Protein backbone atom coordinates (compact mmCIF):
# COMPACT_ATOMS: atom_id res chain seq x y z
CA UNK A 1 0.00 0.00 0.00
CA UNK A 2 1.51 3.27 -1.17
CA UNK A 3 -0.50 6.24 -0.01
CA UNK A 4 -0.01 9.82 1.06
CA UNK A 5 -1.28 9.37 4.61
CA UNK A 6 -0.07 9.31 8.19
CA UNK A 7 -1.57 6.72 10.53
CA UNK A 8 -4.19 4.61 8.71
CA UNK A 9 -6.60 4.89 11.63
CA UNK A 10 -6.59 8.69 11.37
CA UNK A 11 -7.29 9.11 7.68
CA UNK A 12 -10.89 10.18 8.13
CA UNK A 13 -10.37 12.79 10.81
CA UNK A 14 -7.34 14.23 9.03
CA UNK A 15 -9.16 14.25 5.73
CA UNK A 16 -12.19 16.02 7.17
CA UNK A 17 -9.98 18.59 8.85
CA UNK A 18 -8.03 19.12 5.65
CA UNK A 19 -11.25 19.59 3.74
CA UNK A 20 -12.87 22.13 6.02
CA UNK A 21 -9.65 24.06 6.47
CA UNK A 22 -9.05 24.17 2.71
CA UNK A 23 -12.58 25.28 1.94
CA UNK A 24 -13.90 27.35 4.86
CA UNK A 25 -16.09 29.29 2.44
CA UNK A 26 -18.19 26.17 1.85
CA UNK A 27 -17.80 23.94 4.87
CA UNK A 28 -17.78 24.08 8.62
CA UNK A 29 -17.10 21.11 10.83
CA UNK A 30 -19.74 20.24 13.41
CA UNK A 31 -17.78 20.11 16.68
CA UNK A 32 -16.82 16.64 17.96
CA UNK A 33 -17.98 14.90 14.79
CA UNK A 34 -16.79 14.12 11.28
CA UNK A 35 -19.89 15.85 9.96
CA UNK A 36 -19.78 19.07 7.98
CA UNK A 37 -22.41 21.74 7.49
CA UNK A 38 -22.75 24.55 4.97
CA UNK A 39 -20.89 27.69 6.06
CA UNK A 40 -23.43 29.89 4.36
CA UNK A 41 -26.10 29.57 7.03
CA UNK A 42 -28.33 32.27 5.54
CA UNK A 43 -28.87 30.17 2.45
CA UNK A 44 -30.60 27.53 4.59
CA UNK A 45 -33.06 29.78 6.41
CA UNK A 46 -36.65 28.71 6.04
CA UNK A 47 -35.74 25.75 3.87
CA UNK A 48 -35.83 22.00 4.22
CA UNK A 49 -32.38 20.70 5.15
CA UNK A 50 -30.75 18.03 3.00
CA UNK A 51 -28.35 15.63 4.69
CA UNK A 52 -26.30 12.95 3.02
CA UNK A 53 -23.32 10.86 3.96
CA UNK A 54 -21.87 7.44 4.08
CA UNK A 55 -18.51 5.81 4.42
CA UNK A 56 -15.44 7.83 3.48
CA UNK A 57 -13.47 6.93 0.37
CA UNK A 58 -16.00 8.31 -2.12
CA UNK A 59 -14.58 11.82 -2.31
CA UNK A 60 -15.66 14.36 -3.48
CA UNK A 61 -18.84 12.70 -2.19
CA UNK A 62 -20.40 13.73 0.03
CA UNK A 63 -18.96 16.93 1.48
CA UNK A 64 -17.99 18.19 -1.97
CA UNK A 65 -21.70 18.66 -2.65
CA UNK A 66 -22.45 20.68 0.46
CA UNK A 67 -23.33 24.27 -0.39
CA UNK A 68 -26.03 26.65 -1.53
CA UNK A 69 -28.48 24.81 -3.79
CA UNK A 70 -27.35 21.33 -2.87
CA UNK A 71 -26.63 19.58 0.46
CA UNK A 72 -26.98 21.28 3.84
CA UNK A 73 -24.69 18.87 5.63
CA UNK A 74 -22.71 15.69 5.03
CA UNK A 75 -21.46 13.01 7.38
CA UNK A 76 -18.22 11.10 6.82
CA UNK A 77 -18.03 7.59 8.27
CA UNK A 78 -14.92 5.48 8.56
CA UNK A 79 -13.60 4.36 5.18
CA UNK A 80 -16.31 2.30 3.43
CA UNK A 81 -18.28 2.19 6.69
CA UNK A 82 -21.51 3.98 7.50
CA UNK A 83 -21.32 6.96 9.84
CA UNK A 84 -22.82 6.37 13.27
CA UNK A 85 -26.26 7.60 14.37
CA UNK A 86 -24.92 10.22 16.79
CA UNK A 87 -22.96 11.86 13.98
CA UNK A 88 -25.83 11.73 11.53
CA UNK A 89 -28.06 13.14 14.22
CA UNK A 90 -25.67 16.05 14.75
CA UNK A 91 -25.85 16.77 11.01
CA UNK A 92 -29.64 16.62 11.06
CA UNK A 93 -29.75 19.14 13.89
CA UNK A 94 -27.36 21.46 12.06
CA UNK A 95 -29.40 21.18 8.87
CA UNK A 96 -32.79 21.73 10.44
CA UNK A 97 -34.22 25.21 10.09
CA UNK A 98 -37.73 24.41 11.17
CA UNK A 99 -38.91 22.89 7.91
CA UNK A 100 -37.62 19.39 8.51
CA UNK A 101 -34.72 17.45 7.12
CA UNK A 102 -34.48 15.08 4.19
CA UNK A 103 -31.92 12.26 4.28
CA UNK A 104 -30.27 10.79 1.20
CA UNK A 105 -29.19 7.25 2.11
CA UNK A 106 -27.47 4.69 -0.04
CA UNK A 107 -28.88 1.19 0.16
CA UNK A 108 -26.38 -0.70 2.32
CA UNK A 109 -27.56 -2.39 5.48
CA UNK A 110 -25.09 -0.41 7.58
CA UNK A 111 -26.14 2.93 6.18
CA UNK A 112 -29.84 2.18 6.30
CA UNK A 113 -29.75 1.10 9.94
CA UNK A 114 -27.49 3.88 11.16
CA UNK A 115 -29.50 6.59 9.40
CA UNK A 116 -32.64 4.98 10.73
CA UNK A 117 -31.44 5.22 14.30
CA UNK A 118 -30.46 8.84 13.71
CA UNK A 119 -33.94 9.52 12.43
CA UNK A 120 -35.37 8.02 15.63
CA UNK A 121 -33.15 10.31 17.67
CA UNK A 122 -34.20 13.38 15.67
CA UNK A 123 -37.87 12.58 15.92
CA UNK A 124 -37.51 12.44 19.71
CA UNK A 125 -36.44 16.08 19.34
CA UNK A 126 -39.46 16.87 17.19
CA UNK A 127 -37.47 17.34 14.02
CA UNK A 128 -39.43 16.11 11.02
CA UNK A 129 -37.31 13.70 9.03
CA UNK A 130 -37.97 11.94 5.75
CA UNK A 131 -35.60 10.03 3.56
CA UNK A 132 -34.88 8.26 0.31
CA UNK A 133 -32.89 5.06 0.03
CA UNK A 134 -31.01 5.26 -3.25
CA UNK A 135 -30.58 1.91 -5.01
CA UNK A 136 -29.54 2.81 -8.54
CA UNK A 137 -26.95 0.07 -9.13
CA UNK A 138 -28.47 -2.43 -11.53
CA UNK A 139 -25.55 -4.88 -11.24
CA UNK A 140 -27.41 -6.89 -8.64
CA UNK A 141 -30.68 -8.44 -9.64
CA UNK A 142 -33.30 -6.95 -7.40
CA UNK A 143 -35.21 -9.33 -5.18
CA UNK A 144 -37.45 -9.21 -2.19
CA UNK A 145 -35.19 -11.76 -0.56
CA UNK A 146 -31.96 -9.77 -0.56
CA UNK A 147 -30.67 -6.46 0.64
CA UNK A 148 -31.69 -5.18 -2.78
CA UNK A 149 -29.73 -2.96 -5.09
CA UNK A 150 -26.85 -0.81 -3.92
CA UNK A 151 -26.69 2.96 -3.98
CA UNK A 152 -23.89 4.33 -6.17
CA UNK A 153 -23.16 7.31 -8.44
CA UNK A 154 -26.80 8.08 -9.17
CA UNK A 155 -26.88 9.40 -5.60
CA UNK A 156 -25.02 12.48 -6.82
CA UNK A 157 -27.86 13.31 -9.21
CA UNK A 158 -30.31 12.72 -6.37
CA UNK A 159 -28.40 15.26 -4.25
CA UNK A 160 -28.69 17.75 -7.06
CA UNK A 161 -32.42 17.32 -7.50
CA UNK A 162 -33.47 17.48 -3.89
CA UNK A 163 -30.97 20.25 -3.18
CA UNK A 164 -32.39 22.41 -5.95
CA UNK A 165 -35.97 21.71 -4.86
CA UNK A 166 -35.16 22.57 -1.25
CA UNK A 167 -33.48 25.80 -2.31
CA UNK A 168 -36.60 26.73 -4.26
CA UNK A 169 -38.71 26.26 -1.14
CA UNK A 170 -40.21 22.81 -1.65
CA UNK A 171 -41.73 21.19 1.44
CA UNK A 172 -40.42 18.02 3.02
CA UNK A 173 -43.32 16.06 1.53
CA UNK A 174 -42.73 17.49 -1.93
CA UNK A 175 -39.07 16.60 -1.71
CA UNK A 176 -39.87 13.05 -0.67
CA UNK A 177 -42.26 12.77 -3.59
CA UNK A 178 -39.66 14.17 -6.00
CA UNK A 179 -36.98 11.80 -4.72
CA UNK A 180 -39.19 8.76 -5.05
CA UNK A 181 -40.36 9.48 -8.55
CA UNK A 182 -36.86 10.40 -9.76
CA UNK A 183 -35.24 7.34 -8.18
CA UNK A 184 -37.28 4.98 -10.31
CA UNK A 185 -35.65 6.52 -13.37
CA UNK A 186 -31.98 6.52 -12.32
CA UNK A 187 -29.89 3.49 -13.30
CA UNK A 188 -26.16 2.96 -12.85
CA UNK A 189 -23.69 0.26 -13.79
CA UNK A 190 -19.90 0.16 -13.40
CA UNK A 191 -16.82 -1.55 -14.75
CA UNK A 192 -13.64 -1.86 -12.69
CA UNK A 193 -10.05 -2.21 -13.89
CA UNK A 194 -8.56 -2.43 -10.40
CA UNK A 195 -9.67 -2.41 -6.78
CA UNK A 196 -9.43 0.04 -3.92
CA UNK A 197 -7.25 -0.41 -0.84
CA UNK A 198 -8.81 0.60 2.47
CA UNK A 199 -5.93 2.17 4.45
CA UNK A 200 -6.61 0.18 7.60
CA UNK A 201 -6.81 -3.04 5.61
CA UNK A 202 -3.65 -2.39 3.61
CA UNK A 203 -4.42 -4.57 0.62
CA UNK A 204 -6.83 -4.30 -2.31
CA UNK A 205 -10.43 -5.49 -1.86
CA UNK A 206 -9.99 -7.89 -4.79
CA UNK A 207 -7.43 -8.52 -7.48
CA UNK A 208 -7.76 -8.51 -11.22
CA UNK A 209 -5.13 -9.83 -13.58
CA UNK A 210 -3.19 -7.36 -15.72
CA UNK A 211 -5.60 -7.82 -18.60
CA UNK A 212 -8.80 -8.41 -16.64
CA UNK A 213 -11.81 -6.25 -15.87
CA UNK A 214 -14.95 -6.83 -13.85
CA UNK A 215 -18.44 -5.59 -14.69
CA UNK A 216 -20.89 -4.54 -12.03
CA UNK A 217 -18.48 -3.93 -9.16
CA UNK A 218 -19.83 -1.80 -6.31
CA UNK A 219 -18.23 1.26 -4.76
CA UNK A 220 -16.77 -0.74 -1.86
CA UNK A 221 -15.23 -3.48 -3.95
CA UNK A 222 -18.42 -5.53 -3.88
CA UNK A 223 -18.17 -8.27 -6.50
CA UNK A 224 -19.70 -7.69 -9.91
CA UNK A 225 -21.44 -10.00 -12.33
CA UNK A 226 -18.68 -10.99 -14.75
CA UNK A 227 -14.93 -10.96 -15.21
CA UNK A 228 -13.30 -11.01 -18.58
CA UNK A 229 -10.33 -9.78 -20.60
CA UNK A 230 -10.09 -6.04 -21.05
CA UNK A 231 -12.04 -4.77 -24.06
CA UNK A 232 -11.98 -1.60 -26.09
CA UNK A 233 -13.84 1.40 -24.74
CA UNK A 234 -16.46 0.91 -27.46
CA UNK A 235 -17.16 -2.63 -26.28
CA UNK A 236 -17.29 -1.62 -22.62
CA UNK A 237 -19.90 0.99 -23.53
CA UNK A 238 -21.89 -1.62 -25.44
CA UNK A 239 -21.89 -4.00 -22.48
CA UNK A 240 -22.91 -1.38 -19.93
CA UNK A 241 -25.50 0.26 -22.14
CA UNK A 242 -27.17 -3.05 -22.95
CA UNK A 243 -27.24 -3.90 -19.27
CA UNK A 244 -28.98 -0.61 -18.55
CA UNK A 245 -31.35 -1.10 -21.42
CA UNK A 246 -32.48 -4.41 -20.00
CA UNK A 247 -33.58 -2.55 -16.89
CA UNK A 248 -34.91 0.59 -18.46
CA UNK A 249 -35.62 0.83 -22.18
CA UNK A 250 -33.91 3.76 -23.91
CA UNK A 251 -36.41 5.64 -26.02
CA UNK A 252 -35.65 8.18 -28.71
CA UNK A 253 -38.54 10.40 -27.63
CA UNK A 254 -37.35 10.64 -24.03
CA UNK A 255 -34.90 13.14 -22.59
CA UNK A 256 -31.89 11.76 -20.72
CA UNK A 257 -29.27 13.02 -18.30
CA UNK A 258 -25.99 11.12 -18.26
CA UNK A 259 -23.27 10.87 -15.64
CA UNK A 260 -19.98 9.24 -16.59
CA UNK A 261 -18.25 8.81 -13.26
CA UNK A 262 -14.57 8.04 -12.71
CA UNK A 263 -13.95 5.63 -9.84
CA UNK A 264 -10.82 7.39 -8.59
CA UNK A 265 -7.69 6.38 -10.48
CA UNK A 266 -9.03 6.49 -14.03
CA UNK A 267 -7.80 9.61 -15.80
CA UNK A 268 -10.23 12.03 -17.42
CA UNK A 269 -8.65 11.14 -20.78
CA UNK A 270 -10.21 7.69 -20.54
CA UNK A 271 -13.49 9.04 -19.24
CA UNK A 272 -13.78 11.39 -22.22
CA UNK A 273 -13.00 8.58 -24.66
CA UNK A 274 -15.64 6.43 -22.97
CA UNK A 275 -18.08 9.35 -23.24
CA UNK A 276 -17.32 9.69 -26.92
CA UNK A 277 -18.19 6.05 -27.53
CA UNK A 278 -21.24 6.35 -25.31
CA UNK A 279 -22.57 9.33 -27.23
CA UNK A 280 -22.03 7.43 -30.48
CA UNK A 281 -23.99 4.45 -29.25
CA UNK A 282 -26.76 6.63 -27.86
CA UNK A 283 -26.88 8.39 -31.22
CA UNK A 284 -27.43 4.99 -32.83
CA UNK A 285 -30.60 4.92 -30.75
CA UNK A 286 -31.48 8.48 -31.79
CA UNK A 287 -30.75 9.75 -28.32
CA UNK A 288 -28.79 12.90 -27.51
CA UNK A 289 -28.53 13.56 -23.76
CA UNK A 290 -29.84 16.95 -22.68
CA UNK A 291 -27.56 16.99 -19.64
CA UNK A 292 -24.18 15.39 -19.17
CA UNK A 293 -21.33 15.35 -16.70
CA UNK A 294 -18.02 13.49 -16.87
CA UNK A 295 -15.58 13.24 -13.98
CA UNK A 296 -14.87 11.86 -10.53
CA UNK A 297 -18.01 12.34 -8.46
CA UNK A 298 -18.60 9.12 -6.49
CA UNK A 299 -15.25 7.41 -6.25
CA UNK A 300 -13.99 4.29 -4.59
CA UNK A 301 -10.64 5.55 -3.24
CA UNK A 302 -8.09 4.62 -5.94
CA UNK A 303 -10.15 2.08 -7.81
CA UNK A 304 -9.73 2.33 -11.59
CA UNK A 305 -12.88 2.14 -13.69
CA UNK A 306 -15.97 4.10 -14.59
CA UNK A 307 -19.65 3.96 -13.88
CA UNK A 308 -22.41 5.01 -16.21
CA UNK A 309 -25.61 6.55 -14.89
CA UNK A 310 -28.60 7.14 -17.13
CA UNK A 311 -31.43 9.23 -15.80
CA UNK A 312 -34.67 9.23 -17.74
CA UNK A 313 -36.03 12.76 -17.36
CA UNK A 314 -39.68 11.82 -17.34
CA UNK A 315 -40.57 15.07 -15.60
CA UNK A 316 -39.49 18.35 -17.24
CA UNK A 317 -38.80 19.92 -13.90
CA UNK A 318 -35.90 17.53 -13.29
CA UNK A 319 -33.73 19.04 -16.01
CA UNK A 320 -34.31 22.43 -14.49
CA UNK A 321 -33.16 21.10 -11.12
CA UNK A 322 -30.04 19.59 -12.67
CA UNK A 323 -29.16 22.92 -14.26
CA UNK A 324 -30.01 24.98 -11.18
CA UNK A 325 -26.91 26.92 -10.06
CA UNK A 326 -25.10 25.72 -6.95
CA UNK A 327 -22.12 26.80 -4.89
CA UNK A 328 -20.18 23.71 -3.91
CA UNK A 329 -16.64 22.41 -4.13
CA UNK A 330 -17.29 19.60 -6.54
CA UNK A 331 -20.53 19.77 -8.56
Amino acid at each position, binding site marked *: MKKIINEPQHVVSEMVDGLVRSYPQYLEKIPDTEAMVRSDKDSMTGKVGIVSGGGSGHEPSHAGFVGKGMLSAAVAGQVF*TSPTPDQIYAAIKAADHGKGVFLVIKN*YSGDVMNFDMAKDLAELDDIKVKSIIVDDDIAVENSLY*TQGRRGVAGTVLMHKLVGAAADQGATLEEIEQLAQSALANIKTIAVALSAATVPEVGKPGFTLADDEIEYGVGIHSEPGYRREKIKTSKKLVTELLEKIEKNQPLKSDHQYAVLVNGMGATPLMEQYIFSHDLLDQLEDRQIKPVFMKVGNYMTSIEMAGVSLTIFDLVDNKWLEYLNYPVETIAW
Partner: protein
Amino acid sequence: MLTAENTKKWMDSFYRKIEENKDYLSELDTPIGDGDHGNNMMRGMDGVKNSLAQLQDPDLKTVLKAIAMGLISKVGGASGPLYGTAFLEMAKKCSETQKVNELLSVALAGIKKRGGATEGDKTMVDVWSPVAQSNAITPKIIDDAIASTKDMQARKGRASYLGERSIGHLDPGAVSSGYLFTALLETEGTL
Protein backbone atom coordinates in the same frame (compact mmCIF):
# COMPACT_ATOMS: atom_id res chain seq x y z
CA MET B 1 -29.20 -13.20 36.28
CA LEU B 2 -27.48 -10.15 34.89
CA THR B 3 -26.07 -7.62 37.30
CA ALA B 4 -24.09 -4.48 36.70
CA GLU B 5 -21.01 -6.31 37.96
CA ASN B 6 -21.17 -9.52 35.94
CA THR B 7 -22.23 -7.62 32.81
CA LYS B 8 -19.04 -5.58 33.03
CA LYS B 9 -17.03 -8.79 33.40
CA TRP B 10 -18.89 -10.23 30.44
CA MET B 11 -17.83 -7.24 28.36
CA ASP B 12 -14.21 -7.54 29.52
CA SER B 13 -14.18 -11.10 28.31
CA PHE B 14 -15.92 -10.22 25.03
CA TYR B 15 -13.40 -7.42 24.53
CA ARG B 16 -10.49 -9.86 24.83
CA LYS B 17 -12.06 -12.30 22.39
CA ILE B 18 -12.61 -9.56 19.82
CA GLU B 19 -9.07 -8.34 20.33
CA GLU B 20 -7.66 -11.83 19.80
CA ASN B 21 -9.84 -12.58 16.79
CA LYS B 22 -9.97 -9.21 15.13
CA ASP B 23 -8.01 -10.30 12.06
CA TYR B 24 -9.91 -13.56 11.81
CA LEU B 25 -13.25 -11.75 11.83
CA SER B 26 -12.10 -9.37 9.11
CA GLU B 27 -10.85 -12.32 7.11
CA LEU B 28 -14.22 -14.03 7.38
CA ASP B 29 -15.76 -10.79 6.13
CA THR B 30 -13.49 -10.67 3.07
CA PRO B 31 -14.94 -13.29 0.70
CA ILE B 32 -18.56 -12.42 1.42
CA GLY B 33 -18.38 -8.87 2.78
CA ASP B 34 -16.05 -5.93 2.87
CA GLY B 35 -13.37 -7.26 5.17
CA ASP B 36 -13.92 -4.95 8.11
CA HIS B 37 -16.00 -6.84 10.66
CA GLY B 38 -13.04 -7.37 13.00
CA ASN B 39 -12.03 -3.72 12.81
CA ASN B 40 -15.62 -2.61 13.30
CA MET B 41 -16.11 -4.77 16.41
CA MET B 42 -12.76 -3.72 17.84
CA ARG B 43 -13.64 -0.04 17.39
CA GLY B 44 -17.01 -0.76 18.99
CA MET B 45 -15.56 -2.60 21.96
CA ASP B 46 -13.01 0.16 22.49
CA GLY B 47 -16.01 2.46 22.63
CA VAL B 48 -17.73 0.18 25.14
CA LYS B 49 -14.62 -0.01 27.30
CA ASN B 50 -14.36 3.78 27.38
CA SER B 51 -18.05 4.28 28.15
CA LEU B 52 -17.94 1.76 30.98
CA ALA B 53 -14.75 3.21 32.44
CA GLN B 54 -16.49 6.52 32.90
CA LEU B 55 -19.28 5.11 35.07
CA GLN B 56 -19.09 5.19 38.85
CA ASP B 57 -21.18 2.56 40.61
CA PRO B 58 -23.68 2.20 37.80
CA ASP B 59 -26.82 0.13 37.93
CA LEU B 60 -27.51 -2.60 35.35
CA LYS B 61 -29.61 -0.34 33.15
CA THR B 62 -26.85 2.25 32.99
CA VAL B 63 -24.31 -0.43 32.13
CA LEU B 64 -26.44 -1.88 29.34
CA LYS B 65 -27.16 1.54 27.93
CA ALA B 66 -23.48 2.47 27.99
CA ILE B 67 -22.65 -0.71 26.09
CA ALA B 68 -25.31 0.11 23.52
CA MET B 69 -24.12 3.67 23.07
CA GLY B 70 -20.48 2.61 22.85
CA LEU B 71 -21.32 0.22 20.02
CA ILE B 72 -23.77 2.50 18.26
CA SER B 73 -21.49 5.50 18.28
CA LYS B 74 -18.30 3.75 17.25
CA VAL B 75 -19.00 0.95 14.80
CA GLY B 76 -20.84 2.45 11.88
CA GLY B 77 -21.03 -0.82 9.93
CA ALA B 78 -24.18 -2.93 9.95
CA SER B 79 -23.06 -4.67 13.11
CA GLY B 80 -23.08 -1.42 15.12
CA PRO B 81 -26.78 -0.62 15.11
CA LEU B 82 -27.60 -4.33 15.44
CA TYR B 83 -25.49 -5.05 18.52
CA GLY B 84 -26.38 -1.58 19.77
CA THR B 85 -30.09 -2.17 19.41
CA ALA B 86 -29.76 -5.51 21.19
CA PHE B 87 -28.24 -3.91 24.28
CA LEU B 88 -30.62 -0.95 24.11
CA GLU B 89 -33.58 -3.32 24.21
CA MET B 90 -32.04 -5.18 27.17
CA ALA B 91 -31.57 -1.85 28.95
CA LYS B 92 -35.24 -1.01 28.44
CA LYS B 93 -36.35 -4.38 29.78
CA CYS B 94 -33.95 -4.91 32.69
CA SER B 95 -35.99 -3.09 35.34
CA GLU B 96 -38.63 -5.75 34.78
CA THR B 97 -36.44 -8.85 34.59
CA GLN B 98 -32.78 -9.68 34.86
CA LYS B 99 -33.12 -13.22 33.57
CA VAL B 100 -30.63 -13.80 30.80
CA ASN B 101 -32.92 -15.68 28.43
CA GLU B 102 -35.71 -13.13 28.80
CA LEU B 103 -33.33 -10.28 28.12
CA LEU B 104 -31.79 -12.05 25.12
CA SER B 105 -35.29 -12.55 23.72
CA VAL B 106 -36.05 -8.83 23.64
CA ALA B 107 -32.56 -8.25 22.24
CA LEU B 108 -33.21 -10.71 19.43
CA ALA B 109 -36.54 -9.07 18.66
CA GLY B 110 -34.72 -5.73 18.43
CA ILE B 111 -32.13 -7.09 16.03
CA LYS B 112 -34.79 -8.61 13.82
CA LYS B 113 -36.77 -5.41 13.75
CA ARG B 114 -33.77 -3.20 13.07
CA GLY B 115 -32.31 -5.32 10.29
CA GLY B 116 -35.38 -7.07 8.93
CA ALA B 117 -33.57 -10.40 8.89
CA THR B 118 -35.10 -13.65 9.98
CA GLU B 119 -33.70 -17.09 10.75
CA GLY B 120 -31.93 -18.64 7.78
CA ASP B 121 -30.85 -15.34 6.20
CA LYS B 122 -27.20 -16.05 7.12
CA THR B 123 -26.76 -13.28 9.68
CA MET B 124 -26.08 -12.93 13.39
CA VAL B 125 -29.77 -13.72 13.89
CA ASP B 126 -28.91 -17.35 13.23
CA VAL B 127 -26.82 -17.39 16.39
CA TRP B 128 -28.90 -15.06 18.56
CA SER B 129 -32.10 -16.94 17.86
CA PRO B 130 -31.16 -20.49 19.01
CA VAL B 131 -29.22 -19.07 21.97
CA ALA B 132 -32.06 -16.83 23.11
CA GLN B 133 -34.53 -19.69 22.77
CA SER B 134 -32.52 -22.25 24.72
CA ASN B 135 -33.16 -22.69 28.42
CA ALA B 136 -29.54 -23.48 29.04
CA ILE B 137 -26.87 -22.08 26.78
CA THR B 138 -24.13 -24.59 25.96
CA PRO B 139 -20.98 -24.39 23.87
CA LYS B 140 -22.55 -26.87 21.48
CA ILE B 141 -25.62 -24.73 20.88
CA ILE B 142 -23.36 -21.80 20.07
CA ASP B 143 -21.02 -23.76 17.83
CA ASP B 144 -23.83 -25.49 15.95
CA ALA B 145 -25.53 -22.18 15.38
CA ILE B 146 -22.36 -20.63 13.99
CA ALA B 147 -21.70 -23.64 11.80
CA SER B 148 -25.24 -23.61 10.44
CA THR B 149 -24.57 -20.32 8.64
CA LYS B 150 -21.97 -21.93 6.43
CA ASP B 151 -24.36 -23.62 4.06
CA MET B 152 -26.89 -20.82 3.99
CA GLN B 153 -27.32 -18.37 1.13
CA ALA B 154 -27.22 -14.80 2.42
CA ARG B 155 -30.38 -12.77 2.08
CA LYS B 156 -29.43 -9.74 4.16
CA GLY B 157 -26.33 -7.57 4.47
CA ARG B 158 -23.49 -7.25 2.00
CA ALA B 159 -23.13 -10.99 1.57
CA SER B 160 -26.53 -11.06 -0.14
CA TYR B 161 -24.98 -9.33 -3.21
CA LEU B 162 -23.13 -12.56 -3.85
CA GLY B 163 -26.23 -14.67 -4.23
CA GLU B 164 -25.30 -18.34 -4.39
CA ARG B 165 -21.62 -17.52 -4.10
CA SER B 166 -22.24 -16.66 -0.44
CA ILE B 167 -22.76 -20.35 0.29
CA GLY B 168 -19.81 -22.16 1.86
CA HIS B 169 -18.60 -19.35 4.13
CA LEU B 170 -19.33 -18.69 7.80
CA ASP B 171 -21.14 -15.41 8.48
CA PRO B 172 -18.76 -13.04 10.30
CA GLY B 173 -21.49 -11.51 12.46
CA ALA B 174 -22.56 -15.01 13.50
CA VAL B 175 -19.00 -15.76 14.57
CA SER B 176 -18.63 -12.54 16.59
CA SER B 177 -22.01 -13.24 18.21
CA GLY B 178 -20.63 -16.65 19.11
CA TYR B 179 -17.80 -14.92 20.99
CA LEU B 180 -20.35 -12.81 22.81
CA PHE B 181 -22.23 -15.86 24.06
CA THR B 182 -19.10 -17.85 24.85
CA ALA B 183 -17.97 -14.87 26.92
CA LEU B 184 -21.36 -14.89 28.62
CA LEU B 185 -21.05 -18.60 29.37
CA GLU B 186 -17.65 -18.04 30.89
CA THR B 187 -18.76 -15.17 33.09
CA GLU B 188 -19.45 -16.48 36.53
CA GLY B 189 -22.83 -15.57 37.92
CA THR B 190 -24.54 -14.63 34.70
CA LEU B 191 -26.34 -17.88 34.03
